[in-house]
């Protein structure tokens, strides 16, 4: 059996007396579709920051395809295939949508250091970006500055950039939060069509979204994994219902 | 090296440090508290200093000259805040840096066209010009006065900023202007007053420190690096950082000049770079943005 796409063992972090992550274990196989849920303050954001390297864990190991990455910088982890989307917009607002994607492609292919061969290399990046955006139904908006796009398209662009990096593991941080329902459809479609081989972990509040997407759900409460299992098990679990689902679902 | 001469060096360092503090504390307010990249701090100081020297030349006393310097620099600051700074508050570091650099040129040019290129003479009153017996030796009264003035200013600032409603409102206005407007705080007035106060302090500092940093056409540029360094090392948190930074830099500079006269400016700038890299956000860092 090959190593899991991502494996987390005993991840621990505290800020003083506040234990924000306690011995978290998590393992996703290639192509997994999992969701991370938990009430506000459960440590979901901290967990994502620990995975991506924005925060450094006090203890624990993170491996991608069996290789440790927990000592690497955030950017180096991205180059190893651990990619996230952001809850709030972090797009390059003055740059066109296609160039936003092309930049990611350039980084992925390692050609972003190329200084003098501009026509050919950059044109190739743009061409792939155009294909990616057309695929997601961007149409004529691809040339618009990212900051001027409607909110839904901005979130879609965020996903397009993440896919362009060809991640092994993709962390989707509330991909549809704040998107008007009229524009949400395109995002749902994009999520349904994420590459089969990529392991995806969705961090989400919206239970409809979670149950629609996930084959496996991890419940995080107070920095610990309360339980994990198939959606049906989670929905049926009394403890989960009291700490979490009880508040959003009758 | 006797203990007494070491004490004298320390006292000299303290006096120079306080001079630095007095002259850059206004910048701690505009750049530190209000977070405006104000490269024109030296220009406002110059306006005050020139006004003070004109007053002295026309027979005003030292105290009156300081008041006039404060009013001139504060008035100029008030006008500039209205016309030039306010539209730039939301536009980031670079436009502010560039505009204030241009403003510095305008002030230098205008003052020089009006007053010529000679150094402005700033005679001390007789009570400060002499020496005072401090037990183990006679020491220049002016330096003791600087130390006292610096300490007094620090105390006043602490009272106003930490202990009054105005200080609380100012901090709130900087952190969240929209919220403050919503609850009825007059943010514009607070910013205008505070900015003018920072400039007035610059004017006072220019007169007080004129013996160590003489007023001449390029004053605003020559000492700009020094003012910025004080605030940069002190951190944008509050004036206490600047106080510590001024004293540390004053001591490093004075001790360096005394023991290694050839290398003192290296030591100074090496210390500056070291301190900035060690504490990139200053000794008393402001809230992260």
């Amino acid at each position, binding site marked *: 059996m090959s190593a899991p796409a991502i494996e987390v063992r005993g991840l621990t972090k505290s800020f003083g007396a506040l234990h924000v992550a306690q011995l978290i274990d998590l393992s996703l196989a290639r192509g997994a579709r999992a969701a991370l849920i938990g009430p506000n303050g459960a440590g979901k954001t901290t967990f994502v920051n620990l995975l991506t390297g924005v925060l450094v864990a006090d203890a624990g190991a993170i491996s991608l395809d069996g290789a440790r990455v927990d000592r690497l910088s955030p950017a180096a982890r991205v180059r190893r295939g651990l990619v996230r989307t952001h809850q709030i917009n972090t797009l390059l607002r003055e740059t066109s949508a296609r160039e936003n994607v092309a930049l990611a492609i*350039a980084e992925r292919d390692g050609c972003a*250091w190329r200084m003098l061969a501009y026509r050919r290399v950059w044109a190739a990046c743009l061409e792939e970006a155009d294909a990616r955006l057309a695929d997601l139904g961007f149409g004529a908006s691809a040339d618009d500055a990212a900051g001027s796009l409607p909110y839904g398209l901005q979130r879609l662009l965020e996903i397009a950039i993440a896919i362009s990096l060809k991640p092994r593991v993709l962390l989707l941080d509330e991909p549809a939060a704040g998107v008007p329902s009229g524009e949400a459809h395109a995002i749902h479609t994009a999520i349904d069509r994420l590459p089969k081989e990529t392991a995806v972990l969705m961090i989400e509040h919206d239970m409809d979204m979670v149950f629609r997407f996930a084959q496996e759900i991890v419940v995080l409460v107070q920095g610990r994994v309360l339980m994990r299992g198939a959606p049906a098990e989670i929905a049926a679990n009394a403890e989960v219902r009291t700490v979490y689902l009880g508040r959003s679902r009758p | 090296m006797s203990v007494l001469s070491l004490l004298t060096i320390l006292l000299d360092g303290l006096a120079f440090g306080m001079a630095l503090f007095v002259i850059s504390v206004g910048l701690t307010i505009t750049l530190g508290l209000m977070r405006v990249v104000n490269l024109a701090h030296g220009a406002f100081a110059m306006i005050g200093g020139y006004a003070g020297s004109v007053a002295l030349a026309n027979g005003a006393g030292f105290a009156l000259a300081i008041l006039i310097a404060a009013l001139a620099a504060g008035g100029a600051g008030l006008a500039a805040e209205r016309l030039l700074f306010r539209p730039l508050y939301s536009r980031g570091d670079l436009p502010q840096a560039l505009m204030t650099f241009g403003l510095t*040129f305008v002030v230098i040019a205008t003052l020089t066209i009006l007053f010529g290129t000679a150094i402005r003479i700033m005679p001390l009153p007789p009570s400060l010009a002499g020496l005072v017996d401090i037990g183990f030796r006679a020491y220049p009264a002016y330096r003791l006065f600087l130390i006292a003035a610096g300490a007094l200013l620090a105390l006043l600032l602490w009272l106003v900023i930490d202990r009054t409603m105005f200080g609380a409102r100012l901090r709130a206005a900087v952190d969240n202007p929209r919220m403050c407007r919503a609850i009825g705080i007059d943010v514009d007035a607070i910013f205008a007053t505070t900015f003018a106060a920072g400039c007035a302090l610059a004017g006072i500092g220019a007169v007080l420190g004129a013996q160590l940093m003489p007023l001449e056409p390029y004053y605003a540029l020559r000492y700009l690096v020094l003012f910025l360094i004080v605030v940069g090392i002190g951190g944008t948190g509050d004036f206490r950082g600047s106080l510590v930074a001024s004293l540390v830099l004053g001591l490093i500079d004075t001790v360096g000049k005394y023991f290694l006269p050839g290398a003192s400016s290296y030591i100074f700038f090496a210390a500056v770079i070291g301190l900035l890299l060690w504490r*990139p956000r200053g000794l008393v860092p402001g809230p992260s943005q």
Partner: protein
Amino acid sequence: MIARAGNWAMRAAPWLAAIAVNWIAPDYMSLAASVLTMGLFALSLDLALGHAGIVTLGHGAFYGVGAYAAGIFAIHVWADPLAGLAAATLVAGLVGAVTGALILDTSGLTLMMLTLAIASMIAEFANSARDLTGGDDGLTGIRPSPVLGLFRFDLWGHTAYLYTLAVVFVWTMIAWRILGSPFGHSLDGVRQNAARMRAIGAPVRMRLIAAYALSAAMAGTAGALGAQATKTVSLASLGVLTSGTVLMVAVLGGMRRRWGAYLGALVYVVGQNFAAEIDPFRWMLVIGLMMIAVVMFFENGLAGLVDLLDRRARPSTGGGK
């Protein structure tokens, strides 16, 4: 096709005009060379500040380092101007790489202070290393040999001008190429949002160091050209005023605009030359006011203003890039 040919003509015309200056304005050769040198210097700043977003108040240091390196090289090693240029470019680039590595993980105000402090320290070094630099008397006695061993620097400055133009042309072509490359686009990305660039795997700090070193090397070339043209280097070339001046030129011309640096240099250097003879402080007043006006009202500088007039003149020709 027509648009493309027009595009090429637009890009070539200023260079052709610059060559023509050699015959049109033979009395102003040294002034014209200064415009080009300042333009190159401002272009180097545009790369670091305009594109990569490195807010530096100490760019004069690299100009000065290049000037001193070229001067010292010419006096002590080899008088060949191109070799001197290469040496200066290399030294300035190296200083840029080393100082960049030291300071480029900071940003904002701290970065401004650090650039200022490092520039001040380099100036202090030049001041105290009198044996090498001549201290505050300046460095004199630079006598470049003929360019490529063929073209002597003539009394009227024709050789110096055409030599400067050739060097500036080469650097500008390289700079434009870099700005259109993936690397150049990634710098624009870092300026807008470094966190986003990290999120797509970009080694942001390394890329900033590369941009800074490149920009420093370019500024060093400009300094070397200045030293070879005036045959002297003064301490002022390293100073705050040099750093401030190049900031003004870049902003005045318009940052991130193809011709911005050269437009700014043209206006600044020519204005300086004529106005400063009459009264340097009145010129300073004008420059200061222009600077304020540009920041407050014309964010894109003179290049933006030219665009605006162009659009007025031809109201309905949208689309063509």
